[in-house]
């Protein structure tokens, strides 16, 4: 960021005749509003408003440290899924199978055989299983989309159905209790007073941010989502890149599965129900363009926090799930409308 500002000053020598562009405008508060920070500002305001409502309606229970940790712990799982989703959507795709992948990974990682292995050696076996299952499903998604030329919506819809089906077959529709204590102890524990699950979420979000904004991989993701043909002509291996994006999303689902296993101490084919909708909603209100080419991890994190806090406020006030859904829908519409206005202003004219 600071780099950008530095270059802006020494950069544009005033030209004799400004035929092509207006000169770079000085940085003003409006410019700041237009920047990524500005886009997230709306989300910050929304989150703060929600908190105010929370404090006003359920102050004594809402504003406690324990409740904040509860919110964060709930946000952590869907948050990790949403980070993966941000990559796929920024790259011009969509992944409807995330919830199903979480379920399958959780089931596969908690079969008797895997748990036995974990009990005999190390819980790492359970984690690895979940990650490999997630990444493998993502790989299948990616191959179908990139090389099979199946539209992402359809390919991942198929994965949604089959992954959950497979999870049901493996688990025989039974909830698999985790008996490996070292696993639950580690992931259920805390580090410097903060639960491990929240640390994982923070790590994934930070890594996601760096990957998207600071690496060639991230840059190419924007290019592939913004104009795939241009990316191809520029020598980017668009198909391979697309596969990588879906694998990344699958991997995130594997991580989320591990976290969910720790939180519920079970693996189940019903885990991750409707995660795809929650994740897409969080990504979209965060400011990532559903048509690809623009995406922000920060926005996604805020999106997740907003939805989870909303959940929490409604639950504390004993309001129904249905009322929650209505509020969610309203938030999505309002957020997207606001963003479109900001986006229009930031493109000038």
């Amino acid at each position: 960021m600071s780099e950008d500002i530095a270059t802006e000053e020494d950069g544009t020598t005033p030209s004799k005749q400004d035929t092509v562009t207006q000169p770079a405008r000085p940085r003003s508060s409006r410019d700041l509003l237009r920047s990524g920070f500005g886009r997230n500002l709306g989300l910050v305001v929304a989150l703060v408003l929600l908190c105010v409502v929370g404090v006003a309606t359920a102050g004594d229970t809402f504003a406690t440290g324990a409740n904040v940790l509860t919110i964060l712990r709930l946000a952590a799982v869907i948050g990790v899924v949403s980070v993966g989703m941000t990559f796929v959507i920024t790259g011009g795709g969509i992944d409807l199978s995330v919830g199903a992948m979480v379920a399958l990974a959780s089931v596969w990682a908690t079969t008797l055989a895997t748990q036995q292995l974990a009990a005999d050696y190390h819980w790492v076996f359970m984690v690895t299983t979940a990650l490999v299952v997630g990444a493998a499903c993502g790989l299948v998604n990616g191959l179908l989309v990139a090389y099979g030329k199946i539209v992402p919506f359809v390919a991942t819809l198929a994965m949604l159905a089959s992954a959950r089906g497979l999870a049901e077959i493996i688990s025989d529709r039974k909830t698999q209790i985790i008996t490996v204590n070292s696993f639950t102890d580690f992931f259920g524990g805390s580090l410097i007073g903060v639960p491990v699950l929240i640390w994982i979420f923070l790590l994934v979000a930070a890594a996601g941010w760096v990957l998207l904004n600071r690496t060639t991989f991230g840059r190419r993701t924007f290019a592939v989502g913004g104009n795939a043909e241009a990316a191809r002509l520029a020598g980017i291996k668009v198909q391979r890149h697309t596969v990588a994006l879906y694998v990344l999303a699958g991997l995130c689902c594997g991580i989320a599965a591990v976290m969910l296993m720790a939180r519920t101490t079970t693996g189940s084919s019903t885990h991750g129900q409707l995660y795809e909708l929650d994740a897409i909603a969080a990504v979209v209100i965060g400011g990532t363009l559903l048509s690809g080419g623009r995406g922000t991890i920060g926005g996604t994190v805020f999106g997740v926090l907003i939805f989870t806090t909303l959940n929490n406020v409604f639950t504390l006030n004993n309001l129904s799930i249905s009322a929650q859904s209505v509020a969610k829908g309203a938030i999505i519409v309002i957020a997207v409308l606001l963003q479109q206005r900001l986006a229009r202003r930031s493109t000038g004219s």
Partner: protein
Amino acid sequence: MTGLLNMTGIVKEFPGVRALDGVDLDVRAGEVHCLLGQNGAGKSTLIRVLTGAHQPDAGMIRINDEPVQLNSPTAAIQRGIAAIYQELDLVPELTVAENIFLGHEPSRYGFSRTHEANTKARAILQGLGHAEIPVHRTVGSLPAAGQQVVSMARALSREARLIVMDEPSAVLDPEEVSNLFRVIRSLTDSGVAVVYISHRLEEIREIGDRVTVLKDGATVATGLDARRTPTKELIQLMTGRSIEYVFPPRNEVPDTAPVVLEVVDLSRPGEFAGIGFGVRAGEILGLAGLVGSGRSEVLETVYGARRAATGFVRVNGAVLRPGRVQDAVKAGVGLAPEERKSQALLLDEAVFKNITVSTLGRFASSGFLNNRAEREAAGKLALALDVRPPGVDHPVRNLSGGNQQKVVLARWLLRDCRVLLLDEPTRGVDVGARSEIYALIRELASNGVAIVLVSSEVPEVLGLSDRVVVLREGRAVHTGPAQEIDEHQVLDLVMEGSA
């Protein structure tokens, strides 16, 4: 000079069309090799074969006498081939610097080095004479000419041995074209070969060394001297007939003809100020000026697509509310915009649907469309404009660049406008079809339409219009009959103070 690239017998078929049917091309290091051919002759397709974007069905490509297989853009890039495509191939959401280095970003351990990219991008833009383009602006917010410059910068950023330029000058004005030529010369001096495509013969004479002519997907002549081959011969080779490159005779516009369009003291801060002119029925008014002089902005403001800060527009005596396109449309004003591809075309729809889309009412009765009437009307225009391949049922996506232009122009010509605003009507259109378009525009005028014409090509403005307004930096610096001013005077006027 040694043979750098040698392509022989290249064939490329699309479903139903043989776009290339045995093309030969040989390019030497350090030369500017021009490709000439009518719209749809296969130039862009050949280029896409060369850059690995299309796979040829037959033929052989040799680089430095070594047979190569260019089965992906990456393969071509690795062999030192870079291209500026006719269709801008930029990612609108990325910044200028990011676009320039797309696919080969300065990076270390996979981390992109933004600062280095910005610095290098700035240096390349400077070399192109465009230091003013901010490298961290998103490309989507740049005007067309700026995007073209970014596209050129991108090709230069690869250290290529062969750079292909597919109509790079179409959106540039004369000064920018001379910038481009300066860059091309310094490239060829260092041994880089350039393949240059343009429909403007003057450019080919100025920058070209040798010419290859394509017709209907085959090479009809190769190795012609770019400077000495007579224009007549080139046109004969391209079109198979001889076409006189002339403008249709002007009509006498009587002083009694009503002033249909009146523009009074129109201003938009930062764009243009104090613009005023009147156009009579049957008159063609030309707006000359550099890209960025405010020409297109004036047109868009007259049309209501931009809101005037001061001044007003009157059509047949009635004032249009500023910033209201519906008002303009109702009053019979039509605008054929400059950025046709992005603003106007339904790429996957058939040619005739694209032509009739803004006049649907005429082909419908109680809501049902009469497809036959649509096809007929569209077909007549397509024929007049020489849209190739003939027929109106192909999806527009499969047409060549120039033919797509003709389709959009046809749409506006079909509409019964009382005032027609034409922004660059012949961009990318070949020599043959140009005269047809000129004739059509003149015919509209004789039917009483008031026409405002914007073009980067000064001879076109002077040859076609009755009166010209010369714009510089958003101000009218000259207004007068087109016959009383010549190209040099106009160029002096538009460049004055900027040299």
